[in-house]
């Protein structure tokens, strides 16, 4: 393999910043725990998105200060949150009616593995980590668009983008976009189509370093993010 001088530096913030650009005013969005939660910090000025939390609310607001923590008001990760003016609460069946019924425009989830067929594995490493799927399977199966958010590489150096997931799947062929700290990929015809890349990386570097079939879109551009 050709040695490249380019050095990868993990950058979660650029992933969150870029994903936030998908959203338009009025979109209903569910953000998963971890990296996806960061996306809320970067919604572009002028766009008003409605955040849904599967434990039973729409209109999720920022964390309260320590004096205003309410034991009855948490997000799906059990962190104290606030409700925006006009937001509301509902039970878990209604919450998953919203999710499964196609009323969520975007769901953003973390990744253990994502493959070029749009399969996602993010809930289980057999024998090691079995936290349970929580709401992830419903979110991925039911949301209009699914965005997988992940750093491009595992600690071992192989890419989290695969030809075929080896881990148990969260859902089959449901992922629409993958945003990593190298670029933005659309899943089309069983390939990762690179549509945008982040400096200082190049499409050639990304194709070379990804353990899957990556096609560079004819409209692929350097991100201005």
């Amino acid at each position, binding site marked *: 393999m050709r040695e490249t001088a380019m050095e990868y530096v993990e950058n979660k913030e650029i992933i969150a910043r870029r994903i936030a650009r998908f959203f338009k005013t009025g979109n209903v969005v569910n953000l998963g725990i971890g990296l996806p939660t960061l996306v809320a910090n970067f919604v572009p000025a002028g766009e008003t998105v409605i955040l849904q*939390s*599967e*434990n*039973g*609310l729409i209109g999720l607001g920022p964390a309260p200060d320590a004096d205003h923590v*309410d*034991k*009855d*008001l*948490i997000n*799906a*990760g*059990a962190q104290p949150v606030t*409700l925006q003016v006009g937001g509301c*609460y*509902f*039970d*878990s*069946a209604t*919450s*998953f009616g919203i*999710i*499964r019924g196609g009323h969520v425009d975007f769901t953003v989830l973390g990744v253990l593995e994502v493959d070029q067929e749009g*399969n996602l594995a993010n809930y289980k490493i057999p024998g090691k980590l*079995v*936290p*349970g*799927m*929580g*709401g*992830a*399977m*419903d979110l991925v*199966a*039911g949301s209009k668009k699914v965005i997988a958010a992940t750093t491009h590489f595992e600690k071992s150096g192989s890419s989290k983008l695969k030809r075929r997931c080896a881990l*148990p*799947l*969260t*859902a*089959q*062929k449901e992922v629409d976009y993958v945003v990593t700290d190298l670029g933005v990929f659309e899943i089309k015809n069983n390939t990762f189509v690179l549509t945008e890349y982040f400096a200082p990386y190049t499409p050639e570097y990304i194709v070379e370093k990804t353990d899957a079939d990556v096609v560079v879109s004819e409209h692929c551009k350097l991100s201005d993010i």
Partner: protein
Amino acid sequence: MIAKPMISPQKAAELVQDGMVVHVGGFLGCGSPERIIQALLERGAKNLTLVCNDTAVYDPKTGRKNGVAPLVLAKAFSRVIVSHIGTNPETQRQMNAGEMIVDLVPQGTLAERIRAAGCGLGGFLTPTGVGTEVENGKQKFEMNGRTYLLELPLKGNIALLKARKADKAGNLVYSKTARNFNPLMAMACDIVIVEAEEIVEIGSLDPDQIHTPSIFVDYIVQA
């Protein structure tokens, strides 16, 4: 309206008999009936099957725990049917040691199975879990070009709920995200006990603002 018996947490814990299927409201401990759970712990309840969103939060480093977590630590459950165990490492330990059966169910499927039990449905078709381990052993149906799994209702012997307010007839109002599975479980179990933070006279709740109608509630415990 008929007033329901007001009982102590200890009496509630006696109504939960060993071997029962127990639905417990709450999401990571938010909206769980903590006093009844404490009484169950003191009674030494055993061999229960838990239906709950999760096994709540237990941090072995700090000892902090909430919701049903103390009952998990006391090995009160022989089986748990939940969507998530990642915030309670003791659940995974007991599962790996073969001390407890853990059935992981997608959260929306779990909610709907409980709802179906309470609403007299024989089951429902969901796209969730198709192409994953969740589909193992389940009937599949093709409808309008999409594949669905048949999921079955999940009834319980007894429900332990948490409400913000109850009137003495058992009409319930929940608080914020502490609502979660509580109103679904109220309809899905033979016996329903609610632990309410505030118990008020019949007629003092606005009928338009009641989340769970009184007919589902059998006993009331003061939180």
